């Protein structure tokens, strides 16, 4: 075990897998400049040379198709995007090509490709640098979607994704980059498709994705103060979804909130809520509720941005509604801590 930041864990996984397997290469806008995608691609050029780690022109569509071509001919590309929003330019390759190539070839081809993209808040990122899009990717058969929230998970899931013979979209939240945690030594892999119970509890289940796991844990702390025991589940892999772990938890707690790092409407939160409502029908003490972004484009000014993003406060309130409790006094509690730590310009 060692203590690593999320950024170091990503970087460690890349180095480890590139050492293990010379088919792996990393490319994308600015992966090889000195900023190294918030430090996550540090040392790759130095260790593996410019053939295996190179910056590209700003041509997301072609570069995505290029990854597909490399993957079906025996390499294992890792395509990096400093913002998931840029993948909107690559949706055709993703949805029409990458996700269908295996099926359309009757199983002849496989597409061992990883697409890494950073999501989440930064410094006034505004409407074009703030999407998450995981429900869009997850909606497509033939693609896996992963959103790890701890250093250990990102290391283990990155390794698993790189070794997997399928296309995997890996979403990394910007604000998680500086979080530090224990990481398993060696080449321990975290299996794709398995949720993690982040905190055990008995009264209410919060299924949380990405940064919302952090908020869910804070909400759980607050609710514990008044004797409410919250179970927090991080699906980690969003597609395919580990339904069993979620259902087992909700069958125990009889209450469920889905806290998704995205808009709720037609989102991943809707999927989890629909699935839990169906599979736990008759076993629920209250309706499954969803907590997500305000249904507006993300504004720049901080005061509105803080209204846009839900946080532990909203989760506490949703939990109280679910459990039929009075609203606890949260005045004096500062929900905006990380926001004040994170600095610009980006």
């Amino acid at each position, binding site marked *: 075990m060692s203590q690593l930041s999320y950024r170091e864990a990503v970087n460690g996984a890349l180095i480890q897998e590139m050492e293990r397997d010379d088919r792996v*290469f990393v490319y994308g806008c600015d992966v090889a400049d000195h900023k190294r995608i918030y430090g996550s691609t540090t040392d790759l050029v130095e260790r593996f040379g410019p*053939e295996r780690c190179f910056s*590209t*022109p700003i*041509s997301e*569509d*072609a*570069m*995505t*198709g*290029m*990854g*597909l*071509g*490399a*993957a*079906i*001919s*025996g*390499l294992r*590309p890792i395509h990096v995007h400093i913002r998931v929003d840029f993948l909107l330019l690559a949706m*055709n*390759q993703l949805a*029409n*090509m990458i996700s269908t*190539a*295996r*099926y*359309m*070839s*009757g*199983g*002849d*081809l*496989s*597409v*061992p490709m990883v697409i890494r993209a950073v999501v989440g808040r930064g410094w006034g990122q505004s409407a074009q640098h703030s999407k998450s899009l995981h429900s869009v990717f997850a909606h497509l*058969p*033939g693609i*896996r979607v992963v959103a790890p929230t701890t250093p250990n998970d990102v290391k283990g899931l990155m390794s698993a994704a790189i070794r*997997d*013979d*399928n296309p995997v979209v890996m979403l990394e939240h910007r604000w998680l980059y500086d979080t530090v945690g224990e990481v398993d030594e060696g080449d321990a892999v975290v299996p794709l498709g398995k949720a993690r119970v982040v905190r055990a509890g008995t009264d209410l289940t919060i299924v949380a994705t990405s940064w919302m796991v952090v908020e869910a844990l804070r909400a759980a702390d607050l609710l514990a103060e008044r004797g409410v025991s919250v179970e927090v589940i991080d699906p980690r892999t969003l597609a395919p979804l580990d339904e069993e772990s979620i259902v087992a938890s909700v069958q125990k707690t009889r209450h469920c909130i889905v806290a998704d790092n995205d808009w709720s409407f037609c989102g991943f939160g809707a999927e989890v809520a629909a699935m839990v409502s169906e599979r736990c029908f008759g076993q629920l003490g209250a309706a499954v509720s969803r907590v997500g972004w305000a249904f507006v484009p993300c504004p720049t000014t901080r005061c509105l941005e803080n209204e846009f993003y839900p946080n532990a406060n909203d989760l506490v309130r949703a939990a109280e509604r679910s459990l039929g409790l009075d609203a606890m006094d949260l005045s004096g509690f500062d929900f905006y801590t990380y926001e004040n730590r994170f600095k610009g310009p980006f």
Partner: protein
Amino acid sequence: MTARAQALTLYESLLLIRRAEEKIQAHYAEDDMKTPVHLYIGQEAVAAGVVNGLDPADPIVGTYRSHGIYLARTDDPEGFFAELYGRVGGPAKGKAGSMHMARPQDGLFLTSAVVATTIPVALGLAFTQQYRKTGRSVAAFFGDGAMDEGVFWESLNFACLKRLPVLFVCEDNGLAIHTPSVARRGYKSVADAVGGFDCHFVESESTDPAEISDLTRDALARQREDGRPVFMRLRCYRYVEHVGPREDRDFHLGYRREEEFEYWRARDPVRCQRERLIKLGVPEAEVAALETKIDERLSRCVAEAQKAPFPEPEELHRDVLA
């Protein structure tokens, strides 16, 4: 190979494509080929010539109009018809149909029904060749319409930048569905537009597959010499409608002119190649025998495909993930 042998090989390739598609025309109205067909009749010299000029191990990608490259590369009309009839014996067990006909084991990796989308895939295939130093080159076939798409320019740019071993094979039949190139192009000529990029450029309107094969071989040599990719603009003409089996003589609609049709018909690749064979001294009987052999083979392919089994329902859920 002697000129005669080469000519025969090319004739066989052309004829296989032409006759296979004539079979489609003959049977399509039976409604058992439940797949859109974008026929290649008229354009055969391009597929036959380029594929002949390539090394058999050179990877290829194509479009929804890829019957030609499929048959030229694979010599697998059996699988071809099985796929068209949606049978389990097709290269993709019927999942692909006409628009996605491919056979990776023969180097024909992918074809796609969305315009221009396999061009960047060719970059990746070429990247692998470069990475692995295989010495192979990759041919990306696409229509003139694909040049309207931004991804074509992104791909051309990247191939030139990285000196990827790519042959951009533009099958320029002058039409995207019914929209002629003049109504789609803001550049002076293809040569001008592509000419600014750091690649080789070749242009031809030949319907002689040997000439196209030579051009291809020459292009490959140039590409291998200095690493620069090659753009081949190969003008050609389709006699049939954009999609479906009918001959397209809709001259009254104004998007194609009869004189043009006749100009190309007079240089029909299949007929001209037959004439070349005769000129080269191949006996008429030998040519006819070849034709009969192909016809019989294709008839067998169709008959077998028609009675071959369909995939089982469970097949639906296979091949989604590895």
